């Protein structure tokens, strides 16, 4: 038996049916009926943010740290345009989100009504898919489709735009158990013949590398990846998005690769003879100039769920389209079946070469400095949290230091905007992480420029008692911009100095939190310990760091992977 419900009730019921326990949003005229229904129930918790960008980032942090679909709710017009940065951020990193937006009543669409924008048009290029619900009878099925599309195949954000009058109309509510779409059938199983070909290449490799990206995290394939890498004794590198996919403290891990990757990872990438790319997409920040990359002769195996990621920037020899954990499992089975074929002995020379590269100690920095070195803060954070924290970051130098110096052994612990590079992501994302993982230690590593892009969320943190630890690496510069200006623009620091900074300690206090300022390297550890002792308080830690520190190694834009600037 099904009953007649209005569109707002149907929407909330759909969320309940999907098992959504928490959504992030901000009300407005077009979504008032939806808020009314949220008010009347208590299964779906609503977190009121202070800006719609933060609603989407928070839903995104929630999704990344939990592998559940994140949900955001925003009103029409400015609610949607504010949300676009968050949606694009999720899109570039393939994060499963459902964004529900209010729209003006159907009769007003196209008439430049108050708070009307063409939401489907504005968001089209930055969503996996979007819908405008024109008919109440299609509402429940559309929402089901949205969750299905967001979470299957290569995940991504899906937006459902609901006109206000549709939330008032009534219809019988039936939530479909499953969805079949003739136009959307993501592949799962990899092609067995291709997997055999890959196994052959792998068993003949003398200088192999496994290069694994965000696809490992998104598909929960780190255990399969780890098994494969350890069984083969291959070196493994992770992209910025893949950190935690392979345990960073393991001896076979050669560090992150790419623009700010380690010397050993980048050299191994460049000079390997067999490259196993898994859930990664050879993007410009990872392999630098594709021409330089292709100069070296190597065979490439590429495993990915998205056919369009294969041979997009680099031609590959053995493409395998499929769900990463399934393909890896099959590959492991095939390799196990003829184990004699490869021996760890053949890799001895390669590991010796890698050891030489490692000796270059590319991440060294001045540990005796009288001014706080940002790297040291991240190292101490790692020690104090015993590597067990969830760490979000903003965008800039601090993001790279976080990636280089916090050794992630587990997936879904490192949460950053890798694809879009969105300053302002860190704090709201951390809120979502904390809500998905209420007991966990959550740190947000940020810079004094980035943190000011969503600083208003300190208020949300107060309201919901989110005990985040904000690690502000305060160098009084948009450090990454300053670094590029130093290297490539003749030290002309155009508009990259952060003048007129607030007193962050007082700012935190005025939002009802604890503020600390740390100026001496010797105080870092104690300050961090003290902050984490304050289990139920948000602590804003303002570390006054060396203004001139740069991120090394660095592959300048347009250069090849082995053309690194080193310390």
């Amino acid at each position: 038996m099904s009953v007649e419900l209005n569109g707002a009730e149907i929407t909330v019921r759909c969320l309940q049916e999907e098992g959504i326990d928490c959504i992030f949003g901000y009300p407005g005229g077009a979504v008032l009926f939806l808020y009314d229904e949220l008010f009347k129930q208590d299964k779906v918790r609503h977190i009121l943010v202070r800006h719609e960008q933060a609603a989407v980032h928070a839903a995104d942090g929630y999704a990344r740290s939990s592998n559940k679909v994140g949900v955001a709710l925003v009103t029409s017009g400015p609610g949607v345009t504010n949300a676009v940065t968050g949606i694009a951020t999720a899109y570039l990193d393939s994060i499963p989100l459902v964004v529900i937006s209010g729209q003006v009543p159907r009769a007003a669409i196209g008439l430049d009504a108050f708070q009307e924008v063409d939401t489907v048009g504005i968001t089209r290029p930055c969503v996996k898919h979007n819908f405008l619900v024109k008919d109440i009878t299609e509402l429940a099925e559309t929402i089901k489709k949205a969750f299905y599309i967001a979470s299957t195949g290569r995940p991504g954000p899906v937006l459902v735009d609901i006109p206000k009058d549709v939330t008032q109309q009534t219809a019988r509510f039936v939530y479909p158990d499953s969805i079949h779409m003739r136009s959307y059938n993501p592949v799962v199983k990899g092609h067995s013949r291709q997997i055999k070909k890959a196994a052959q290449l792998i068993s003949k490799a003398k200088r192999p590398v496994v290069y694994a990206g965000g696809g490992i995290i998104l598909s929960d394939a780190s255990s399969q990846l780890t098994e494969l890498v350890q069984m083969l004794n291959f070196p493994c590198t992770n992209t910025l998005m893949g950190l935690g996919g392979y345990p960073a403290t393991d001896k076979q891990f050669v560090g992150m690769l790419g623009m700010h990757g380690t010397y050993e990872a980048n050299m191994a990438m460049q000079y390997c003879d067999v490259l196993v790319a898994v859930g990664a997409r050879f993007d410009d920040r990872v392999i630098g100039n594709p021409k330089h990359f292709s100069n070296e002769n190597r065979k490439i195996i590429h495993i990915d769920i998205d056919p369009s990621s294969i041979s997009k920037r680099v031609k590959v020899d053995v493409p395998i389209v499929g769900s990463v954990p399934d393909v890896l499992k099959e590959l492991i089975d095939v390799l196990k079946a003829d184990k004699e074929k490869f021996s760890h002995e053949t890799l001895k020379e390669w590991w010796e070469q890698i050891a030489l590269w490692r000796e270059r100690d590319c991440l060294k920095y001045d540990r005796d400095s009288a001014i706080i070195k940002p790297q040291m803060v991240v190292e101490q954070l790692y020690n104090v949290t015993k590597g067990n924290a969830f760490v979000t970051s903003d965008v800039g130098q601090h993001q790279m230091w976080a990636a280089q110096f916090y050794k992630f052994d587990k997936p879904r612990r490192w949460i950053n905007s890798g694809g879009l590079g969105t300053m302002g992501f860190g704090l709201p994302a951390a809120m979502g992480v904390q809500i998905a993982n209420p007991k966990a230690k959550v740190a947000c590593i940020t810079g004094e420029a980035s943190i000011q892009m969503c600083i208003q969320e300190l208020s949300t943190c107060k309201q919901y008692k989110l005990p985040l630890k904000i690690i502000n690496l305060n160098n009084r510069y948009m450090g990454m911009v300053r670094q590029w200006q130093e290297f490539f623009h003749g030290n002309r620091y155009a508009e990259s100095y952060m003048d007129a900074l607030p007193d962050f300690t007082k700012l935190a206090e005025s939002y009802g939190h604890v503020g600390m300022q740390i100026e001496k390297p010797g105080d870092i550890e104690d300050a961090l310990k003290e902050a984490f002792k304050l289990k139920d308080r948000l602590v804003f830690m303002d570390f006054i760091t060396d203004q001139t520190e740069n991120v090394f190694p660095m592959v300048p834009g347009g250069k090849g992977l082995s053309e690194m600037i080193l310390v």
Partner: protein
Amino acid sequence: MRHIISLLMENEAGALSRVAGLFSARAYNIESLTVAPTEDATLSRMTLVTVGSDDVIEQITKQLNKLIEVVKVVDLNDGDHIERELMLVKVRATGADREEIKRLADIFRGSIIDVTSKSYTIELTGTSSKLDAFIDAIERSAILETVRTGASGIGRGDRILKV
């Protein structure tokens, strides 16, 4: 190289803009695009003519396939196919030119579908290059107006695009 790509997609509002948006967002060339519902009204058939290297064409077909509403994509250039385009041309036709233009239309198997004392409107079907050739054969100043549909294509023989 020039490729003619055919696809079937859900006949839904906004589906066309997803394809057009994809081409502009990724800076792919589009020479022509035609779309209309098929015998099954829930499906539209689209034909796209584009130019690109093999790598670009591979990306185009993959990206089209990735659109949620696209059901099937074929690159007609992968096998034998037939291509047709319809053109309507209005030409100035006075005095001795009248006979000359009629003769030309006959040679190209076109038909005159509207006549005034000063002009002919000619309907012509064929490959895009045949239509180009017809335009080239008429003196430019005599052409008053042209309208072309863009190419449609279909595989030869057993090559069938259907769900």
